[in-house]
């Protein structure tokens, strides 16, 4: 049974949220935040070990369902949530010293951070498609006030856009869920079981194809808004650029994955019902469009966080494309890419956060010579950029290589498009980050090196994944890929 681990997993962020709601204004709130995140991470590890050994399981009257696919995301989420909390402790203190944040704002930040983790974990582990929706909406609600934390006009605008667009998107996803229920009700009958994914999965061959087709379109468009798929992406760069950096890191590294997980759950059902590649084609189309459009937008960015937000759109597009292609290899590659992208992108945001804090601006033309100011930040940013651009030996290279070779084999016409888009993205990002790191500056070096342990920990993991895939992990990914078909 996994009830114990699951309870611990969900209870620690809940407890953390409540505790921080009460004590978020104290001096030790940041430490408490990290501690609760660590508890969550520990529970996630325990859960993962259990599930990888014993296979998929349901818990709590079938309301929760854990298999190799979502437990992998649970582990990733809990890990990055933990490292981000480590990063945010010094970062938010400095912001407070600079006078950009007040104690009540930090109070809000800490409690919402825990509740956001909770919402994501519920969205990942819930078995009920309706509860997944509710948790996804809750994830928006908990982050929207964090995006506008600085209360600047730009941050308010970004938060409003985020709220309205994701609200609309998620409403469409609800319509998709209702249609799914409408189809399920005819097979499974009235009542609570008709929205449970495990039950739906058993009878997916009997679900009405016309309804599921329509339902999937709504679900993809709805959750796709959250993933940041073009043309529904316009909230994403704004929210990432205007929110505090730790929030950008978790939005980019985690929330997008969670939304993609919901889409994959729906895809499995739709594929089973239709017996065609309809859902996959749709995902491939959206994914390809996102890669191309994001790559084209990258070169026009002036704001460093905005640029990396577009890079997130590009990579989410790539992952969606890979999932859309389907098949064991492509799905394996997509899962791997999800992991390395989350790790790398959050590491980059950590480094960018410190660089921006030092330079006092997010405009790239005014950030110069990070290597002179602080070698740690400079190298962290450079290595992170190398990693995200898919340079060997980092893990992103391995996953992108797998995706492109699969595409070359299954859909040859997409290969040149992907390669050109990746090339443009490479030129754009590298061209902009290079002077930031190696340029000349008159600013004084930092008196003491910033604590960038999370950055290098993430990059090290990405490096390891690129050089050598542990058999345990490979086996686990293979099982997850088999589940998704």
């Amino acid at each position, binding site marked *: 049974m996994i009830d114990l681990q699951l309870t611990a997993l969900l209870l620690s962020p809940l407890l953390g949220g409540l505790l921080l709601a009460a004590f978020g204004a104290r001096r030790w709130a940041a430490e408490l935040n990290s501690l609760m995140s660590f508890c969550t991470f520990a529970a996630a590890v325990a859960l993962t070990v259990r599930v990888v050994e014993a296979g998929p399981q349901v818990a709590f009257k079938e309301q929760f369902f854990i298999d190799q696919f979502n437990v992998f995301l649970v582990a990733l989420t809990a890990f990055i949530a933990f490292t981000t909390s480590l990063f945010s402790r010094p970062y938010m203190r400095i912001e407070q010293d600079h006078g950009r944040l007040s104690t009540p704002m930090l109070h809000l930040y800490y409690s919402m951070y825990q509740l956001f983790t909770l919402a994501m974990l519920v969205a990942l582990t819930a078995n009920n498609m309706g509860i997944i929706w509710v948790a996804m909406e809750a994830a928006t609600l908990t982050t*929207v*006030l964090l995006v506008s934390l600085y209360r600047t006009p730009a941050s308010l605008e970004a938060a409003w*856009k985020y*709220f309205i667009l994701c609200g609309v998107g998620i409403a469409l996803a*609800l*319509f998709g*869920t209702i249609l799914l229920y*409408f189809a399920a009700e005819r097979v499974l009958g009235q009542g609570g079981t008709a*929205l449970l994914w495990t039950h739906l999965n058993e009878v997916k061959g009997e679900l009405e194809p016309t309804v599921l087709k329509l339902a999937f379109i709504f679900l993809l468009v709805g959750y796709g808004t959250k993933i940041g798929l073009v043309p529904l992406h316009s909230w994403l760069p704004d929210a990432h650029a205007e929110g505090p950096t730790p929030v950008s890191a978790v939005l980019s590294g985690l929330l997008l994955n969670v939304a993609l997980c919901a889409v994959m759950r729906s895809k499995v059902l739709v594929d089973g019902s239709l017996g065609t590649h309809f859902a996959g084609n749709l995902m491939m189309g959206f994914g390809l469009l996102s890669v191309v459009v994001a790559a084209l937008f990258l070169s026009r*960015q002036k704001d460093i966080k905005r640029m990396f937000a577009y890079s997130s759109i590009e990579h989410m597009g790539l992952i969606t494309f890979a999932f859309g292609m389907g098949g064991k290899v492509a799905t394996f590659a997509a899962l791997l890419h999800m992991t390395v992208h989350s790790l790398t992108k959050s590491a980059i945001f950590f480094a960018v956060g410190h660089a921006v804090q030092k330079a006092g601006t997010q405009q790239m033309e005014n950030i110069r010579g990070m290597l002179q100011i602080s070698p740690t930040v400079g190298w962290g940013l450079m290595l992170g950029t190398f990693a995200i651009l898919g340079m060997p030996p980092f893990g992103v290279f391995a996953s992108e290589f797998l995706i492109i070779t699969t595409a070359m084999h299954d859909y040859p016409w997409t290969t040149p498009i992907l390669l050109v888009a990746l090339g443009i993205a490479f030129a754009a990002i590298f061209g902009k980050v290079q002077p930031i790191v190696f340029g000349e500056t008159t600013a004084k070096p930092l008196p003491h090196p910033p604590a960038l342990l999370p950055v290098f920990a993430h990059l090290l993991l990405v490096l390891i994944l690129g050089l050598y895939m542990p058999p345990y992990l490979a086996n686990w990914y293979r099982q997850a890929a088999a589940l998704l078909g």
Partner: protein
Amino acid sequence: MSYTIQFINLLAAILLLIVFAMLSQRRILSLINLFAWQGLVLTVSTFVVAYSTGQHHLYYSAALTLLLKVLVLPWLLHRLIRKLNVRWDVETLINIPTTMLVGIALVIFAFNLAAPISQLAEGITRGLIGIALASVLLSLLMMLTRRKAISQVVGFLAMENGLFFAATSATHGMPLVVELGIALDVLVATFIFGIFFFQIRETFDSLDITHMEKLKDD
């Protein structure tokens, strides 16, 4: 056709009519009142579906709708506009006839999209999904055409009403736990919207979101 089905069809038609009225309504106060009326129609339709299908959990849904969408949310919104002193604000809407024509096109689109599903449904649900989808799309249109933060929020809530109608009338209600979760989300969202109104007004001196179009990719 039994009288229950006829009655629900009539309510569905009224729902669509209210959404159109919202689309063309200039005054914020009337907009909120229309929203409350929409909630009432939803309550009645949910109650009738509950009565005719004998689904007991739908009675709870109906009560929840009455409480949340007819009483609490309109009350909250009324309170908000009184506090923000925008009670008598009138919005300049450009080109209502064009908006209406686009609206009709959306209704036709929604009906066509839902047509294959309507053919599957039997009895009470026939055609209702199309109307629900149409009101969702029309609320979306309303959010697009509005320039005031409050009207956008009312559009958002109206969209949720359309979804709720789809859930109760077309599928006889989702499981209660899901409906409770949705209701909670909507309530929290309204509170957060309220917080936003104050933040926006504090920063921009107005609730006009035309001030908030600075973030663009040039």
